[in-house]
Structures are given as C-alpha cells and as structure tokens.
C-alpha cells in the first residue's frame, strides 16, 4: 500500500464591489489523499510555486484529505508564516472530522483561518491581498 496525494492547482478571481483596482487571481490548492511524510513534498512544492509567483493569500481545500500527520502540519505552519510575512494568509477549508481532530490536538485550529466550505473560503479570501 503506497500513500497517494494529489494537489490540483486552481485560481479564482474575487469579485470586489466599488473598487477600481484590477483583481488578481488567488490560488486554490485542492488537496486529496494522505498527507504524511512520504507525500508532503507534493503540497510543499505547489505552495512554493504559488509563493514564487507572488501569491500572498492561498486557499487550501482539504475536503478530500483523508489523513494528516505532523509532516503535513509543519508544511501548513511554514506556509502560513510565509503568507503572513507577505501580508496575506493561508485559508483552510472543508476539514474532515479526523483532520480537524489532529489540528485540534496541536492547537492549530486556534491559529489558522478555517472555513467550513470552499465558497466561504473564497469569500473570505476576497478581502485579503492576493498578489
């Protein structure tokens, strides 16, 4: 049995009312599978790519993540620090009960911006600087 993890990299452009600024697309990482030490580099690379393209805010859709270990937690924490240094944020959404339980065990649910659904995360991300 080999662990698999897939990261689908999408973007969305927030609709902002009453602004004359062109809106920049915000990356969405749709992650599915098992986030452990053998797979975490896949997400890490996708996040680094987004940051290197100038992203400040990134939405990580965890709806299909079946499992997370401390390796996955470390990548999320590092990404959040990088986003905050750029004046942005990492928004997590659609956590399964087991993934939320692990984040709870280390106090991350109090540190991260967590939305129930991807739509909620998109709405919140619209109020953050994108790039």
């Amino acid at each position: 049995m080999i662990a698999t993890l897939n990261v689908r990299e999408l973007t969305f452009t927030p609709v902002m009312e009453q602004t004359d600024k062109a809106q920049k697309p915000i990356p969405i990482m749709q992650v599915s599978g098992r986030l452990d030490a053998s797979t975490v580099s896949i997400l890490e690379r996708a996040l680094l790519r987004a940051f290197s393209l100038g992203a400040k805010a990134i939405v990580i859709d965890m709806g299909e993540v079946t499992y997370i270990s401390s390796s996955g937690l470390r990548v999320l924490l590092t990404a959040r620090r990088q986003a905050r240094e750029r004046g942005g944020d990492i928004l997590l959404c659609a956590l399964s009960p087991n993934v939320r339980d692990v984040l709870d065990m280390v106090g991350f649910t109090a540190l991260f911006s967590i939305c129930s659904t991807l739509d909620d995360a998109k709405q919140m991300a619209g109020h953050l600087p994108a790039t």
Partner: protein
Amino acid sequence: MTSTRQLVVPAQHDQLARLASFVGAAAIEVGFGDAQVNRIELAVDEACSNIIDHAYRGAPGVIRLTVEIESQRQLTIILVDQGTPFDPDRVPAYAPCTSLDEVKIGGLGIHLMRQAMDDVCFEFNVPGIGNRLTMIKHL
C-alpha cells in the same frame, strides 16, 4: 484472549501507509471507532517517522511492528528498531500556542503520540532486541 500479529518492513517513508493500515485493522478488531482508529494510526505514523528520520537517519534498517489485540479491551503496539537510540526527552516538549510566532515546530510528533495513546514507553538498547517503543490504548 490476546491475538498477536507482526509486520516487518524496511525503514522507509513509503511504508508509513502500510504500517498505519496494519495497525488500523487491529484497532478496528479491538472495537475502536473511526476517530480513535485515526489517532492510533497517527501515533504509529509519528513513531515510525521518528525511527526513520532520527534512529536510522536515512540509512537502511528495519521496523518490526507487533500488535496485541485484546477484543473489547485494549490494543498494545510494540515497535522495535536497531537504529541510534532517539530519546524523546531531548526534544523540547511541544506546547500548543495562541500565537503563530510562538509555535515551535519540534516535538509535534511526540506530542501527538502522547495525546493519541494512553501509555507511551520508550526503552533503548534492550539486550537482544534494540530500541523498543510500547504504546497502549484502552477501549
């Protein structure tokens, strides 16, 4: 009645899912529900990651996982390796924080193991065995 099973794998990260699946099946057999099965799998994943990264430090080695299943009572997990003893007491204890700046990344794995299991006992350089980690979860 206790039923015992064993799995021996190379100390490699690509074996983590297999180890977790093996122990998860044992946990279900004891009678644990989905949330506790996930925590038990997590404890084994963290313990084995430590063996791979800190005991063997990437060198070839073997992880021997034994599960003792006591139906409707408890699960005992024993992990044995022959790597360099990795004393968790030398890792600063992880303390959940309320501020991102305060979070120390080290010690997360040990913290999760202790949170997930009822008993966690490390023994090092046991004659004829090596390093032995015993973790127990009561139903």
